[in-house]
């Protein structure tokens, strides 16, 4: 648990305390509603985290690095977005991987696309998204996030040299 988790929990506790101060009955109802909902989705959460574990083991940063390697070319950002989008590793793992790829002479567009899709595409949570919002919403957003990742990667490769950026 990081500092942000503690801040979040402190804010939650303060909100519950304030809610209880305003109305005990309403607070009790709020906590019951929350607990019931949590209990309902718990099996699904267990499945999602099982899936995340599987993807982490089958798609390690090392593996991703080996696949993307120093590929240049027009298709590199596309590959990068697909691989980033399928990964379920923690966001903190993406940055060192991105640096490694840049050092291996991967293009900025590919690395940018990979970093964006890593958190923006969310393939592992797609089943959950379908459950809560329906297939039409979830699949459209998922596909659109892929496209956006590639577009942002390309934009980064265009803007960053103009700013004189180098690693």
């Amino acid at each position, binding site marked *: 648990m990081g500092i942000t988790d503690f801040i979040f*929990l402190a804010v939650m506790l303060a909100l519950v305390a304030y809610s209880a101060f305003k109305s005990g009955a309403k607070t009790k109802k709020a906590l019951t509603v929350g607990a019931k909902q949590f209990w309902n989705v718990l099996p699904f959460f267990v*499945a999602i985290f099982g899936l995340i574990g599987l993807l982490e083991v089958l798609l390690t940063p090392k593996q991703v690095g080996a696949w993307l390697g120093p590929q240049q070319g027009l298709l590199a950002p596309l590959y990068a977005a697909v691989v980033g989008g399928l990964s379920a590793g923690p966001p903190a793992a993406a*940055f060192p991987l991105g640096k490694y790829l840049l050092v291996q002479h991967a293009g900025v567009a590919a690395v940018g696309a990979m970093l964006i899709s890593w*958190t923006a595409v969310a393939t592992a949570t797609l089943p959950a998204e379908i459950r*809560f919002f329906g297939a039409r919403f979830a699949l459209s957003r998922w596909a659109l996030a892929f496209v956006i990742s590639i577009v942002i990667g390309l934009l980064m490769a265009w803007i960053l040299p103009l700013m004189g950026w180098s690693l």
Partner: protein
Amino acid sequence: MNAFVKWSKQNWLLYVVLVAYAVLAAFHAPEALDAAIRGLTTFVNLLVTLLGVFVLIGLVRVWVTDAFIIRHLGEESGWRGLAIGAGLGTVMIGPLVGVFPLYESLLAKGARPGVIVAMVSTWAIKLAMIPLELSIFGWQFTLVRNGLLFCAAFVMAPTMEFIIGKNWGARFRDAAGEE
């Protein structure tokens, strides 16, 4: 029996994941164990945060009126609604699965689909990760990447509303009301 079928339908993923683990365990037992331990560790690490999110869901249900949501995040909220959504998404923590139920209740209370899209999009901006990104890539890279990601929310939202259709939000609310 009926309840079990309904439960299974809702939690089909559990069966898929169990089968995947069984297959992996049959051929690569150590990897299957490693995956299970990683998944469990992630889950336990996030459990307290997840519980906090569900407390928030309960509080929103009880205290926040539909009228308030409709006024600030509803169909008529325009760019301001999207900006609020993008801002909220940026400060959201925890896994995306944890905030889906919260967003679902916002939708049911009358939030515009685009606002939810903006929130899911900017969830990809991890405030807590920015120091790490800065130290690895420098300020220009961090600024451009996160800036573009934030702006993308304002492209994603109208595009998604166009793709899923104008009445999607209304139909979602009707379905949620019937349950």
